[in-house]
């Protein structure tokens, strides 16, 4: 099974977490990215995500492989939403299981940081004032 996935339908964190279950793991750290109703001082109504799917899947898989190589973890998974999302919806889920919590926290943080930095997915924010904008991570429009 692929460790990284894209989904154009809502994510089910409980089902995703169950796939990490392991008798030898003592720690599981999950990161959930939720659609926030504000950004940089502007009211946000909803989000849209586009992905260049073949490359996003390959790069996401590479990141999860790196996490398994760098940290003493057992399992690592990530799924990212595409399409239109409402406020409060789950946009990205990362889960890492490990024997000990140090590795689980470090690997989970590594995965979400690298996903945001490297995977070809773009966020379009729709604002309360009618404007919208594709966001660069540094806040500048692109």
């Amino acid at each position, binding site marked *: 099974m692929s460790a990284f996935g894209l989904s154009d339908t809502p994510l089910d964190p409980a089902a995703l977490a169950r796939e990490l279950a392991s008798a030898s793991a003592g720690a599981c750290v999950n990161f959930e990215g939720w659609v926030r109703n504000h950004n940089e001082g502007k009211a946000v109504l909803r989000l849209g995500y586009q992905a*260049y799917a073949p*490359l996003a899947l390959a790069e996401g898989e590479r990141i999860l492989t790196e996490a398994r190589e760098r940290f003493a973890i057992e399992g690592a998974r990530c799924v990212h939403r595409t399409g239109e999302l409402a406020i409060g919806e789950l946009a*990205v889920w990362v889960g890492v299981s490990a024997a000990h919590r140090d590795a689980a926290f470090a690997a989970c943080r590594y995965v979400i940081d690298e996903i945001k930095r490297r995977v070809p997915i*773009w966020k379009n924010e729709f604002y309360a004032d009618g404007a919208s904008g*594709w966001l*660069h991570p*540094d806040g500048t429009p692109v």
Partner: protein
Amino acid sequence: MQYRLLYFASLRDRTGCAAESLVSTAADPRALYAQVAERHGLSLPPERLRVAVNGEFAGWDRSLRDGDEVVFLPPVSGG
């Protein structure tokens, strides 16, 4: 040569299309982007973009072949 180009995010908005086929003499992504930027009036400089060829990241000097799928990637913003 003929290339298949895909556009995402602000580049898709600006070009008005998700994909197009383009006949071009450009031999690498750098030359191809210069042509595409002029054709569509794109303002993002290449320094802010990455390149993918046939579904993998590639350099701006990569030699292109007929039929290649070329994508100019705006700065990503997933998560």
